[in-house]
């Protein structure tokens, strides 16, 4: 832990960074990367960031990507000799690439055991870094619907309920917008809300990403879908966010466990991590990321 604290040069750099970034963040306190970098640098002065030089790549889940990306930026600000590349590609890509050794960290919304052969999954080490939440969203034309129970949502998503008037809304056909079957978002929703029931994909639209879903829901009257918290925060104006079983979709409710549409984000390493990989994974679980960065990006911490 004290590797860099002993280096005066690095310490001075970190302090300077803290000063500059701190000055910036006073005018833009909500900018997550800036505030996180400030806090990272601040605690680095106290010797909290374990700086290891080197170069690593993380790839995988797009749901987890904003968090890993921001954490990597903050870490690199504190440790200029470290290079951490963060790529998307999807959970399957992350797991495949970390298994093949193409990347050092594979990000995934789902467990390695659920995707890989048991023998392959056993070679990976799981690091649970955050909880991520999803929220059901409606096109704003669907007035009067602010809450769906698990039962109502299941009926809508399996094609039993096809008009909003059946759940207290206007007389408008329901347009279901799904993510692809392989998506972590869809798998999580299916497991937690639908209880494993199969979606009515033959009557639905399918969109590739959170962004494409937002565009489709904003534009299509009567449409409904589910997106990650962070994407909802960025697109609040064109969407109506729904409660699930009367519980608001907030980070606080996710943390206290009352909001159930959430899942753990995993970062996998092949075998026990070493060097920069180990230092960065430690940093993900440290106070800078868990207490500062994670809430600011609408995730929930895992470490209590």
């Amino acid at each position, binding site marked *: 832990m004290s590797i860099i604290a002993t280096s005066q040069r690095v310490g001075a750099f970190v302090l300077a960074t803290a000063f500059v970034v701190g000055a910036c963040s006073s005018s833009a306190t909500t900018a997550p990367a800036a505030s996180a970098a400030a806090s990272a640098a601040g605690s680095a002065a106290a010797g909290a960031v374990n700086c290891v030089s080197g170069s690593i790549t993380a790839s995988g889940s797009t749901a987890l990507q904003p968090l890993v990306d921001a954490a990597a930026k903050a870490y690199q600000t504190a440790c200029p000799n470290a290079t951490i590349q963060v790529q998307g590609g*999807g959970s399957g*890509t992350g797991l495949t690439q970390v*298994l093949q050794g193409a990347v050092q960290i594979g990000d995934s919304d789902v467990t390695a055991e659920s*995707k*890989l052969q048991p023998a392959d999954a056993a070679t990976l080490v799981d690091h649970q870094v955050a909880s991520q939440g999803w929220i059901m969203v409606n096109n704003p034309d669907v007035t009067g619907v602010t809450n769906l129970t698990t039962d109502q949502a299941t009926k809508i998503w399996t094609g039993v309920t096809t008009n909003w008037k059946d759940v207290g809304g206007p007389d408008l056909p329901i347009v279901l917008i799904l993510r*692809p079957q*392989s998506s972590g978002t869809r798998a999580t929703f299916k497991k937690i809300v639908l209880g494993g029931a199969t979606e009515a994909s*033959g009557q639905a*639209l*399918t969109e590739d990403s959170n962004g494409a879903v937002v565009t489709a829901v904003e534009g299509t009257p009567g449409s409904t879908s589910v997106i990650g918290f962070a994407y909802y925060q960025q697109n609040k104006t064109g969407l109506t966010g729904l409660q699930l079983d009367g519980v608001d979709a907030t980070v606080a409710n996710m943390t206290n466990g009352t909001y159930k549409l959430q899942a753990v984000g995993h970062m996998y390493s092949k075998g026990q991590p070493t060097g920069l990989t180990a230092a960065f994974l430690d940093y993900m679980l440290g106070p800078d990321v868990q207490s500062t960065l994670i809430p600011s990006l609408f995730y929930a911490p895992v470490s209590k």
Partner: protein
Amino acid sequence: MTDLALRPTSAGIRRARTTWERVDLPRRATLSAAVLVVVLVALLLFFILSNGLALFTASHVALSSVINTSWNPDAGAQTTFGILPFVAGTLGVMLVAALIATPLSIGLALFMAEVAPNWARSITRPAMEVFVGIPSVVYGWLGITVLVPYLRENWAGIGFTLGFSWFAGSLVLALMILPTITSVAYDVFLAIPADLRGASLAMGTTRWQTIRHILLPAAKAGLATAVVLGMMRAAGEALAVQMVIGNRPVMPTSLTEPLTTLTSQITLDMGNTVSGEPWNQALWFMGCVLLLISFLFVLLVRRFGRPGEMV
């Protein structure tokens, strides 16, 4: 060919070949480029086929589960990898796009080759070239922000309740293959000997009669090649189409309803499946089917002959 250097020079003195001539770098460079391309194509074919066929050889998925209309890749015991909706969608979107684009392209090519004064040609040709350079994501973006809402708001009465539809996909594709068909067709018309035109006009025909009875029949094979080349481009296009067709994995039923294509499903799922699982292999197999489709098109093009050879 290499013996040229060994011939006596005009002075009658046999000159020794220089190192440069012995090595013959240009020949080696071009030859290695050709070999490299052939090897790359062979490797690609091998890779795609071995991954796709692993669905049957390694994962032992029954053929009946693949030649099937229901796509349920994660349904446990009921898992099926029916690819027919995707094949039908790809062919359907492509054919309707060709139907829309062909008359427009051939008309445009005729205009540029036969009718247009020089100043008009100097505008239409560069405009075509700009068309080709527009990235497909831009077409898709225009499709989703302009075309899809337009269909939904104005044509809902005839069934476009969602906007996302077969027709929207075909229309976007038609726009994308228009320059391909037009530029090949234009070259076809230019390759028709001027004598044919002269002879026809000398007999007192109008320009339209010349086009209708002389030029179009003469260009038939070349125009077929142009259309097939356009359809090849259409079959492989993924992004722009994916953004407007709604990606519904069912057999296409109506131009106003959403459907899905091979390329669209591959891009939707590839990032979230891991190599070695049957689902991933099914995507590779869909790639094989796409390859087969474009292989058939290449055969068609060879059958029709290249533009310029057919007159």
